[in-house]
């Protein structure tokens, strides 16, 4: 039998697609298993062979809700990631706007310097930050996390906003200026409506990054300002096996942000590569 080129191509294509699906499912498997385990009893969670079909229960979610202050931790995650995002946007929108529409001789240098601050390893400044917080009674407060998250992510946010503002055609602004529009009118009526989508997706990516930030959450918080990240970390030394309950907590902690993440795919690439890959 002779295989034609066409047939060979189809065969390769089908093989590639099959492989792609298998790998995609393998990568997703740990997440799938976590979600599945969260609906099992503790007994079923550690059964051998592992159970794929079982009668699902919501007990874990109920117990987790009753016995741990998960709502409090979730609230802290929301407050710190959204608060940090709002703070960072308030600081960076005016700056990115000015840099994009009125670039000066030093603009490029400033932007690159801002990026370079992102390279500072957190562990390098752990001691001073910890001691400053301790000195001013800020340990275990959400306020300090909001400020740290905002400053940590400011460079990424600046860079993304700068790129979005630059894509706005300058001719539109010129035309409005001819008509006598002031800077304020220019910003509120023309630039903002055009940049709104860019700002929203920047905000979304920022929330994702802050929600998952672990180093400072673990080291600076305890019961009062602990986020979901640190709540999950506290399960790392379980007395006995509570896989089903841990899975329920983890599922709750991750579900909203994974969906957010799906929505930010494109911005994520631009944001995390600082615009180097588009």
């Amino acid at each position: 039998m002779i295989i034609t080129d066409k047939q060979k191509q189809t065969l390769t294509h089908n093989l590639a697609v099959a492989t792609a699906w298998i790998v995609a499912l393998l990568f997703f498997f740990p997440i799938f298993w976590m979600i599945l385990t969260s609906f099992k009893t503790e007994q079923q969670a550690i059964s051998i062979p592992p159970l794929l079909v079982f009668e699902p229960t919501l007990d874990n979610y109920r117990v987790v809700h009753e016995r741990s202050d998960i709502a409090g931790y979730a609230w802290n995650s929301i407050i710190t990631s959204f608060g940090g995002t709002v703070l960072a946007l308030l600081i960076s929108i005016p700056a990115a706007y000015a840099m994009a529409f009125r670039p000066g001789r030093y603009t490029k240098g400033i932007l690159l310097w801002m990026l370079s601050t992102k390279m500072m390893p957190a562990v390098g400044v752990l001691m001073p930050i910890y001691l400053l917080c301790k000195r001013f009674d800020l340990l275990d407060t959400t306020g300090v996390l909001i400020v740290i998250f905002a400053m940590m992510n400011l460079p990424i946010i600046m860079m993304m906003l700068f790129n979005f503002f630059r894509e706005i055609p300058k001719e539109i602004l010129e035309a409005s200026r001819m008509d006598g529009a002031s800077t304020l009118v220019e910003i509120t009526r023309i630039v903002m409506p055009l940049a709104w989508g860019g700002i929203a997706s920047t905000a979304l990516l920022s929330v994702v990054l802050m929600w998952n930030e672990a180093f400072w959450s673990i080291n600076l918080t305890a019961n009062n300002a602990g986020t979901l990240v640190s709540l999950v970390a506290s399960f790392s030394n379980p007395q006995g096996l509570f896989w089903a309950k841990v899975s329920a907590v983890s599922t709750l902690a991750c579900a909203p942000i994974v969906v957010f993440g799906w929505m930010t795919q494109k911005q994520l690439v631009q944001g995390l590569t600082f615009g180097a890959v588009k």
Partner: protein
Amino acid sequence: MLAVAIRAGQQGMGSSMNQTLSRWLQAPSIVLLFIWMIVPAGMTVYFSFINYRLLSPEQGGFAGWSNYEFFYTDRDFWPAIFNTLLMVGLVLVITIVLGLALAVLLDRRFRGRNIARLLLISPFFIMPTVNALIWKTMMMNPIYGILSVVWRFFGAEPIDWLSQFPLLSIVIIISWQWTPFAFLIFMTALQSQDHEQKEAATLDGAGFWAQLWHLTLPHLARPIAVVVLIQSIFHLSIFAEIFVTTGGGPGNQSTNLAFLIYRQAFFGFDVGVAAAGGIIAIILANIVAYLLIRVIGKNLTV
């Protein structure tokens, strides 16, 4: 002179904003970021040269290089440096090879491609502590973990991953999270590849590997460089994954530089020594950062 005048004219054209207003708008972000950078870094430098133990605060004074000496003569120092670099290296190789393969694999039209892509990138959005905990318990547990079930299915002796191969386990956990990142970047970059060029190459009889080597890889050179540098920066200070899984052990087998500093600070209560370690970490990160900034700077148009 003329060139300067033209440039000045162009700058003014886009906006009614004047130079002063522009500076005022930029000032808060620059000043705050400068404080955020200089105050903690300055304090770390200062701490690294004084005697500062949380348990014996009366012992102050200038310490010279003794904190640094203490830190790098710690018997865990060189293992930690070695572990740090090995982790970064292994994760880079795994994520880039897998990410490339997946990007090429999914760079074709098929039904459900978007869903396959969503499944693939999901691990990147799982918080580090959950990631570590899933693997520590449900995947790698030597008795009940899925991997041990698979091992037994093939008649092999299950592995106690975290105690037998702690470093490799952490590498696997982190690669699972970051392969999606590399994949996403490469896939985005592939979308801008010239498909006509590829078709022409096919007509000329160039096979898959020839095309990969001569067309795709050169096209991805920059994205690969960017992924290497960005991942290096993140992975040089891996913390949460170690914190949740092995705690740096057994012994020092999975202790990296970041974890060693953390241990000095919160178990040794020695601020001076931890600060000295912090300075070493900052220097290491800045070598990578310098390269990254150069790559990005080339592409940045103002």
